[in-house]
């Protein structure tokens, strides 16, 4: 699998660290315990198109939102997390 980093270009999967679902960008308010439980543990876990967070650890160190298909490993889009979180 190769990921097209918006800054560095097309790179091997080995350069990236996988964090998990892009839901991690939507941090719940402090004190919302049910929200925090869902944020940390509950996953939609689709067997199809999914969005997740990857860190370009051995490259530019950007956090990326990768939209890809979890069944075919096809990558649809790669966006800087800083732009998604705006």
């Amino acid at each position, binding site marked *: 699998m190769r990921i097209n980093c918006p800054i560095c270009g097309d790179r091997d999967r*080995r350069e990236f660290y*996988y964090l*998990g*679902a892009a839901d991690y960008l939507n941090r719940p308010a402090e004190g919302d315990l*049910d929200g925090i439980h869902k944020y*940390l543990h*509950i996953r939609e876990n689709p067997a199809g198109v999914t969005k*997740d967070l990857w860190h370009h650890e051995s490259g530019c160190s950007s956090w990326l939102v990768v939209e890809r298909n*979890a069944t075919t*490993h096809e990558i649809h889009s790669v966006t800087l997390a800083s732009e998604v979180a705006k």
Partner: protein
Amino acid sequence: MGYNAFQVLKEGLTGNKGWRPVWRDPEPKSDYDVIIIGGGGHGLATAYYLAKNHGITNIAVLERGYIGGGNVGRNTTIVRANYFLPGNSEFYSHSLKLWENMEQELNFNTMHSARGLINLFHTDGQRDAFARRGNMMCNQGDDAILLDRDGVRKHLPYLDFDNHRFPVYGGLYHPRGGTARHDAVAWGYAHAADRLGVDLIQQCEVTGIDVRDGKVQGVETTRGAIRANRVGIVVAGRSSQVAAMAGVDVPIESHILQAFVTEGLKPTVDHVVSFGMGHFYLSQSDKGGLVFGGDLDFYASYAQRGNLPMMEHVMEAGMSLVPALGKAKVLRSWGGIMDMTPDGSFIIDRTKVDGLYMDCGWCYGGFKAVPASGWCMAHLMAEDAPHEVAKKHTFDRFRTGHGLMDEEGTGSQHNLH
């Protein structure tokens, strides 16, 4: 049909014309007392123990594909009870006891082989951790022997003992651990459940779960609606999709775990061996193939095939431990879909829907759990109360943080197991 020496002799002398299919192929009825979704090892064992231990025989097991076609036929066949934490310890101990009597229980040859399992260690710190684990295993009533370097050498002369980075210091030997023929476990439970009257319905995909007023009413399938007021979801690998049909959220992320097998070789590896400094484990099948595997691919996937970086890592780890492995040709590799939970331990629990139960989250260790998982899930569904050895394996532990079973001690978070 029962299997015994007399039957084999009789059929051998009469042209093997009397053998009957190992299980029936019934049409689904319109209602049952219990529906089990998923005809894998765990689902079949659940149905068997519901019938055997609890006298509930009006059961349908609904399988989307065919019996033995899922993860129960795609694993590396290891059976062991070397867990550390309360919760896992008693559960896997119970499971190993059921393995040891499985062939008699099911009247089926599952080729269970207690060939012994050795987890190697390569540092002083690891030795201390394994000594402590071994004590926990002995306290649980299971067996563990701490081997020094020479002790390991007697068992495993083919290891690279003097590897500069990862010298072998010793190993934790678990003599009752071993392997079993994975397909035969599915066939054995299917055969035994069928004989007790359970309907095993293959090529029957569940497409919806009927819930009214918070109670389960039955399921929709590709072969029509089937009613039951108790439904068990036992579909590890697809838990998120099936649970979503009933509006149940699960703390699961699916990952791929790869396995590899070489061409058939003469008997070389007599045990199950695991490397302590790279994720790698090895055994030899009765056909002679070296069966080995490593760690997860480490990103959510349902691809059922692995990725090359992890394949490379597994091969490198294998070569570090057993240099002779480099002479063997890898015949095939495959990947299975793992239900990964945040703490790396499984879930057998009720859901928010009355009458709907789940057995899921088996992470990378479901095969060895097959008998106890079925035993405990059957207890939960029959009594509506958790079994003693699985009562800690709830959904709620993630919400409360109490009773997490993080064997690796890495933290209760999805990408850490």
